[in-house]
Every structure is written in C-alpha cells, then in structure tokens.
C-alpha cells in the first residue's frame, strides 16, 4: 500500500473538527472506528491522481449537456403558501402558534 501523504492523513484533531462541522455527536469508540475507515478510504480517493487529465478538459456538473432549448430555466421568485402547514408543524418536537419551538440557542461571540 502506498504510504499516506501527510497532507491527506486525517489526524484526530482534524477528525474532531470534521465531526463538529458535520454535527454528529459520535461515541468515542465509534469515532475511532470512523477515523480509521476514513483514512482507509483515502486509498480510493488518491486513485483520482492517476487519471490522465490534460488541460483541455473542463469540469462538468452533470454528465449530459443542457442546451438552451430544453432547459427549464429559473422559476419566478414567488412566495406560494403551503396548503397545510399544520401537517408539517405537527411533526416538530415542540410547536406554538404555528411556529416550531427550538431548544435554547446558545449565544456565541463571533470574532
């Protein structure tokens, strides 16, 4: 197996950062396993470097092209009320007066 490049080795501190950003409260054992598995996946990801891509190949966001004549185009930015908001609100853990009630939102000082 090719030795991992230091730049894409996912160390515990970086992994902890990823977990926080992903907003998943992992159990310690699970975190260790996932960190190992994530590093294991780098082998597949590094295969990308073996693909011969000359400078003329531009990235594409979809496989098939969307010529102008078949494109959907952007929708009008119009507010359309949903017919039955209660069917959504009623599934939230807490609600009041047609609003979802959130647990406390801790204030964070920015900068």
């Amino acid at each position, binding site marked *: 197996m*090719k030795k991992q490049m230091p730049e*894409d080795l*996912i160390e515990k501190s970086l*992994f902890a950062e*990823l*977990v926080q*950003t*992903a*907003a*998943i*409260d*992992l*159990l310690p054992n*699970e975190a260790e396993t*996932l960190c190992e*598995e*994530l590093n294991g*996946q780098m*082998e*597949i*990801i*590094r*295969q*990308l*470097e*073996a*693909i011969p*891509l000359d400078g003329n*190949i*531009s*990235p*594409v*966001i*979809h*496989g*098939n092209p*969307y010529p102008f*004549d*078949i*494109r*959907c*185009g*952007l*929708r009008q930015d119009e507010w359309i009320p*949903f017919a*039955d908001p209660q*069917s*959504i609100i009623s*599934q*939230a*853990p807490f609600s009041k007066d047609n609003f*979802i009630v*959130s*647990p*406390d*939102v*801790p204030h964070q000082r920015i900068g």
Partner: protein
Amino acid sequence: MNREFVRLTAFEQAQLIRTKQISASELLKASLVQMEQVEPLTHAFVTICEKEAKEKARAVDKKIAAGEPVGPLAGVPYSAKDLFCTRGIQTTGGSGILSGWLPPYDAAAIERMNQADAVLIGKTNCDEFGMGGTNENSAFQPCPRNPYDSERVAGGSSGGSAAAVATYEGTVSLGTDTGGSIREPAAFCGVVGLKPTYGRVSRWGTLAFASSMDTVGPITRSVRDAALMMNVLAGFDPRDNVTGRVSVPDYISEMKKEIKGLRVGISPDFLKVAVLASDGSIEDHPIEPEITAAVMRTAEILRSAGAEVITDVPMLNTKYSVPAYFVISRIEAYSNLQRYDGLKYGRPSQNHPVDMYDLFAKSREDGFGHEVKLRILTGLFMSRKDFYEKYYLRAQRARALIRSDYDRIFDPMGDYRLDVLLTPSTPLPAFRFDRKGCDPVLIQYADMFTSPMNFAGLPGISLPAGKTSDGLPIGVQFVGYDYCESKILRAAYIAEQTGTVAEGDCPERCSELDMGQSPFGNSPCL
C-alpha cells in the same frame, strides 16, 4: 379470485380491469394475500399501506363502473422505494432519522402513478438514503432477501423493490438509481430495471442522495411494463429543474419498431474489472465467465434478429469512474444530508439535548447509520477549501473524460455510430450475506458497470439473461444515448421476446414460484 392474476404483467392486469374481467379491488386482495405469504421471507417492505390501497382500488372500480376514463395503469398494484415522499404515509429513506415521518405531499413520480390510476400497496426497504448496493445499510432489519436464495443479498439500494416485484408482491415498483441502484438489484433478482436519462423523470419529492446523478425509474417483470411505466413517468416538471423540455414518445410503440440495422456495441472494457491503483498502475480482474457468456448470447440473439453487432468498442475511461463517482457522490451526499437535524426535519433525539446544537448533533448521532456517517464525513473532508481542486474539481473533470467515451461511440458521424452498448449489469451474480465463496474484488466493484451511466447521465436497462449454474439470475444491460430510452427498450424487447436470453427462467415463467408456495420453496437453504 384466481390468484394467478398477480403473475400477469401490469399491461395485462390493466387491460383486464378496464374491460371489467376483474376488478381493481379483487386484484388488490389477491396481491395482499400474496404479500402475507411471502413477505415474512422476502422482507421487502418497510410499510404496507393496505387502507390507502383499498380506497384507491375502490375509486378505480367506481370510475370504471361509471364509465369514466381510467389511466393506463388502472388498478395495477405497485410499490415504491421508501425514498419517495407519500402524503400521510411513513417515508423513512431506510433511515432511523426519518422513522415515523409523514410527508405532507406526494413525490412527482407518485403523483403520476396516482394519475395513471395505479394502486400503491407499500413502501419498500432500501439502503439508507440509497447509500449501498446490498440493502444491508438499512435501519429497518431484517433487510430484503434474494428471492432465488435467501442467504444472498437482493442488491441495492432498490433491493426491496426488486425483491417485491420478483415475488409478485405488487406488479411493478418505483426505484431510484444513483450508481446502479435500480439495475443492480434488478439483475440480482431476475427482473427488469430501467434507469432513464438524467432529467427524463422528475425527482421532485424524492429524498436526495447525490443530486447530479439521482434518477427515478421503473422495476418490472417485463420490458413492456418498463415502457408502459416510462410513458407514465417521463416528462418535464418545473419543480425539478434538471428535467428537460424534450417530447416523450410512446415507448410501447417505439419498443416494437424494427431492429434491423440497429448498431449494438460490445466493449472489452466492460468484460473485465480494471482496478486502478493510486500510482496509476492497472490490474485487470476477470468477471464471472457465465456473465460474459450471457452477454455474448444476447449479442448473438440480436444479430440473428437483424442487428449489427460491433465488438471491440474501446471504453478506455470506464476504469476511472470508481474513484470519481466515490468523490462526487460523497460530497453531494454530505450536502444533501445536512438538512436532517431533529428539529425542522427528522426524528429528534430523546437523549436530553441541552440546547439546539446539542439536539442537532444527538439527533444525527442517533438517527444515522454507520455507512451514512462515514459518507458524510468523507464528503465533508473532500469539500474542504484546501482539497477542493485536488479532489472535487478533478473528479468533475474526470466526469467529462468518462462522458467523452460515450459521445464518441454514439456519434452518428463517428467511427462506431452505435445505437446501444451491450454490457453485463454486474460483474457477478447476487453474493452471499457472509461473502463466502464470492470474489471480494468483484463485490467491491459490483457497481462498476452501472455507475458510469449515472456519471454520463445516460439511460440503461438491465434485463434477465438466464441463470448461473447455481440457479442465480444474470442481468445484461443496454445503454443508450441521451433521451434514447426507446432504443434500449427496443433492444431489450427483442432479447426478451426471443426467449433465448432468459431461457424460460425469468420470474414470469419461473416454476419455482408456484402459487400458494413460498418463493423460496425450492431453495436449498430453506
């Protein structure tokens, strides 16, 4: 009610219902009895919606009694993968985080099936948010079993749909395909699965996995039923802005057109698994010989029917699809799954969250399965600013490279001028849950022949092409150019009609599935 009716195709069932030879309610009753018998063995469903199905069947019967026009799927019982939103009916995506969630609206595909007067009987199990190729990654266990051998996987992620259709638990099913999730389980379960052109069928109301590749399509027991469902499903939808304003042909009449002169290609690059190493070296790995033989047999059938078969079509960039698909699908999955937070969307954690952020993190920890967490973290890692160019941009450029192979072979003025490309659907048949006796490389690369089409946005259909010496179904795949579903249906229809492809072994004709017996009745494991 003769329970043989559940074995008919959707086309035949709808015809009998329209002509009042059977009623939608009677057919539904027979289907529910079938489900009661086989579901404890197949585990294809997460939710069975008997009450809603009975209401819909009664409504269809009422329309027919009143002489009102009915849709092309009048009274046909169908299932939908649990990734489709169904109003008031639990939709989980195979995930614990959506357990108990009742969508407030129907997905576009469900709307269209409803307008066609089909009867939804239930929601089928799938890998969590479509992430997997075996159905083992579902929060709802036991996961679906392969109808031909319950020790083997049904495939995935639409494994519940394929297993249900193969065992007559409903006549057809709606699936989704991001890297082969319709075609791979269809091949494993011996049924037909069609992945349309990206943008041919609306995905509005379908839980998203990787948005640049997600597609919606039919799983059926016959090619004609796949064409019939495409007549219902295909078309522009302003709510899914990747759907194209492209006219929809009558796929059934197109499917029956003359095959003489149709140019069918076979590529040696689709008859092996090329494993790419990070140092650029490539190791070729053979696929199951019986699968190669099935492809060759299918080619011979088409040649005999008047098609031109062109061998040695180079598809040299196919081997790059695995790492590129890996990167893009995970980055898009990470983005799509951020919406599940346990507050606005998804089941909240009961683990005493102290504040809103804690609720998000605990709900996601409780609700997501292991594979989904791994994919989220992988996608997040590769989305980082410092790796954007190295991974994401490079994968998007690789996508262009892979697509160029198809532009070249389907170019009407080019060297090959193909109408369809014939490939295996998978490099191996359904493998065992314990992986014993199965080549681990082929298991790892099980989607190698299907994911390039998601990458390139092209349509592909998998159909049964006989069985292995162990009695497991083999699938072959026809791939076409953008919006050329008619051509792949035409090739598949001819292959099916000759009977030689399936050699009388497709489930419609399979004597193993004797009425009133378990579909596993003749299986050596039970």
